């Protein structure tokens, strides 16, 4: 097997694996539900992207014709990741999950839940 292709595939795989691991580590380490939303939805898009592109390169090289159908999964994940994040953020808001104490502008949580324009910072909703 061509050494250059092998190195390329290995580097892509290692990048992908690193980001998948960091995403899950973030899921464990981050302190509250809103911050936890960030780690997996972001890190898995590039992590999966790396692994899928590596698979694409390897399959193209081994089978001798363009094997691009992994792009479909990459595209699907890229389109669905923000929707999942949005739905989860909505759910967390709806369940009135406690944000981290030092989170800034917590008075926005109440108006975001009610889908209203932001209330003034000194309103009674502020805690």
């Amino acid at each position: 097997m061509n050494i250059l292709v092998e190195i390329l595939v290995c580097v892509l795989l290692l990048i992908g694996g690193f980001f998948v691991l960091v995403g899950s580590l973030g899921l464990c380490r981050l302190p509250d539900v809103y911050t936890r939303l960030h780690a997996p939805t972001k890190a898995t898009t590039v992590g999966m992207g790396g692994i899928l592109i590596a698979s694409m390169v390897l399959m193209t090289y081994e089978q001798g014709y363009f094997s691009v159908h992994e792009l479909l999964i990459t595209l699907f994940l890229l389109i669905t990741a923000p929707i999942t994040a949005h739905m989860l953020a909505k759910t967390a808001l709806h369940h009135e999950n406690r944000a981290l104490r030092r989170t800034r502008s917590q008075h926005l949580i109440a108006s975001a839940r009610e889908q209203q324009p932001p209330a003034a910072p000194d309103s009674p909703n502020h805690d």
Partner: protein
Amino acid sequence: MLNTTIFIVSGAVCIALVLNLWRLLRGPDLSDRILALDTMYINSIALILLYGMHMGTNLYFEAALLIAMLGFVSTVALCKYLLRGDIIE
């Protein structure tokens, strides 16, 4: 070299799955558990693709695509259920 790398990356994805499982069991809220489940779906796609690369076949691609679609739909359905108490209004 390639086989070693695939082994290492599979190990990393497995550790990631265990971390997700920990979050799934620990909670503390339902939205945390759904988030953990969604991440588990995505990580299992990675694992299936790595296995496909190890075996050198294209056959596992369809399985990965199906898991991606089912994972997305089930996450959205669960969120919708928690939001409204109903999936189809």
